[in-house]
Structures are given as structure tokens and as C-alpha cells.
């Protein structure tokens, strides 16, 4: 069994969490899941930006079994498989309903139809919006426009099967800045 460390960010509450909280937000990229960050700095940034309700955020760390994770970030086969299937489902939905599905609806379709129960989680990425942490000087155009080169991936893991989350423990509590 292969395991990796990931980080889970939450608003600071009265009691320390014993388990991660499942995200049920409609705008959650990969549907209802337990969301983790690969990079501690991203976990902290998420706390500062999106977990400000009590003015403090908490970061938890956990070992996660990654054997049955669809790794769309580092595994080329997984990425092309995922990309192809997502577009396949999207095309089917669009051609039969004349409506464009959201990414969450696509993932919900796969999950609710019980098609991919073997997949215990999906690792995916976007590019961080903040430019402060980029160590590369941006490209400056003559007209004054500046373009930042986002060379760093912001990587998340959406876990569907809670049983692969091991040794979930409190790491730190910080005041939001």
C-alpha cells in the first residue's frame, strides 16, 4: 500500500476535528468529497482566503492511501483517460439534453451511476491565483501589460472513500491574515 501526506484546511472551530469534513458545495470541482492539498503552503493560503469565518483557520494532516487514486497530475495515462472520459460524458449529455454540464455534474454522473466505485479519489490541479510566491520575474510588455508565468501547480486530492484517509491529525491553527 502506497501512502502520501496531504493537508486539509478548515475554519477554526470550538473543538479540534477528529475527521475531515466532506465538502458538499455545489461549486466543488470534483463533486462531494473530502478535499486535501498536497502542498502545506496551499493549505495555508486556502485558510487565509476561504476559511475566514472565525478569523482563524486550522490545518490538519493525514496519510492517504493512493493506490486507487486517479492521478491526473503526474500520471500521464490517468490524465488522458480522465480527460477523454470527461469529454465523452459531456458530449453525451450535451447531445441528448442540449445542456452543457458542469464539472461537478460530470463527476456526479460517474459517481451516482456507480460506474467508478473503484476510484477512491482524484488528484487534480489548477494554477494558483496568487503571484507573491512566484520566484520568476513576470514578462513586461511595452504597453505596460504584465504576464506572470505560473510554473507551479496547485494540487488537490478529492477523496471519495473515507477509508483511505489514515492518521488524520491536527497540525496547526493560525489567525487569518
Amino acid at each position, binding site marked *: 500500500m502506497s501512502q502520501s501526506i496531504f493537508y486539509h484546511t478548515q475554519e477554526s472551530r470550538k473543538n479540534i476535528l477528529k475527521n475531515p469534513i466532506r465538502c*458538499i458545495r*455545489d461549486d466543488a470541482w470534483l463533486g462531494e468529497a473530502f478535499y486535501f492539498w498536497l502542498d502545506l503552503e496551499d493549505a495555508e493560503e486556502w485558510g487565509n482566503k476561504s476559511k475566514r469565518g472565525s478569523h482563524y483557520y486550522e490545518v490538519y494532516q493525514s496519510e492517504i492511501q493512493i*493506490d*486507487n487514486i*486517479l492521478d491526473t497530475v503526474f500520471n500521464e*495515462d*490517468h490524465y488522458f*483517460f480522465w480527460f*477523454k*472520459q470527461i469529454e*465523452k*460524458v459531456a458530449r*453525451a*449529455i450535451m447531445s*441528448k*439534453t442540449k*445542456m452543457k*454540464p458542469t464539472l461537478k*455534474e460530470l463527476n*456526479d*454522473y*460517474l459517481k451516482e*451511476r456507480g*460506474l*467508478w466505485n*473503484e*476510484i477512491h479519489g482524484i488528484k487534480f490541479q489548477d494554477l494558483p491565483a496568487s503571484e507573491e510566491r512566484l520566484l520568476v520575474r513576470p514578462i513586461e510588455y511595452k504597453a505596460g501589460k504584465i504576464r506572470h508565468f505560473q510554473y507551479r501547480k496547485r494540487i488537490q486530492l478529492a477523496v471519495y472513500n473515507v477509508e483511505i484517509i489514515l492518521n488524520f491529525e491536527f497540525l496547526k491553527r493560525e489567525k487569518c491574515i
Partner: protein
Amino acid sequence: MLDLINLEIKLDLALANETSESLTEWLHEKRLNAFFQSLGEGIFAPISEIYLENVLTYQNVVFETKFSEVPCSQHYQLAS
């Protein structure tokens, strides 16, 4: 180790069995649920004793009518 070929076969079979009706119904239900979720869950909040007494002792109206005229915001709070 994930069996990607098997996963793709399962998906292809499922999509082949879908009709316009089945997918449209699924999507509509999904969006309807998302809409209600966006409203939050209704939770009964305590109301003041004075307000309650006024409602209960008001003689000239039917209780249900008076109660229903109270804005929802006084009874519910959004939770998410």
C-alpha cells in the same frame, strides 16, 4: 492499481443505455437539488416571548393566517 480499460467499458455501456429522457431527467433533478441546496437548510429559530404572546392573544384573526404573514426571515435562518 486501477483498471482503466474496465472503467472505460463500464462508462461506455452506461452511456449507450442513456436516452434523452433519462439524462434530461437526471440533469433537471440535479439542478433542482442544487437550487434548493443553495437556499440552505431551514432551521427553526427561537422567537421572542413578547412576539409570541401578541400573536397568541390577538383575538380578531385566525392564528394560522397571522402566523403565515410573518416574513420567513423571522422564522428561519440560512445555514450552509
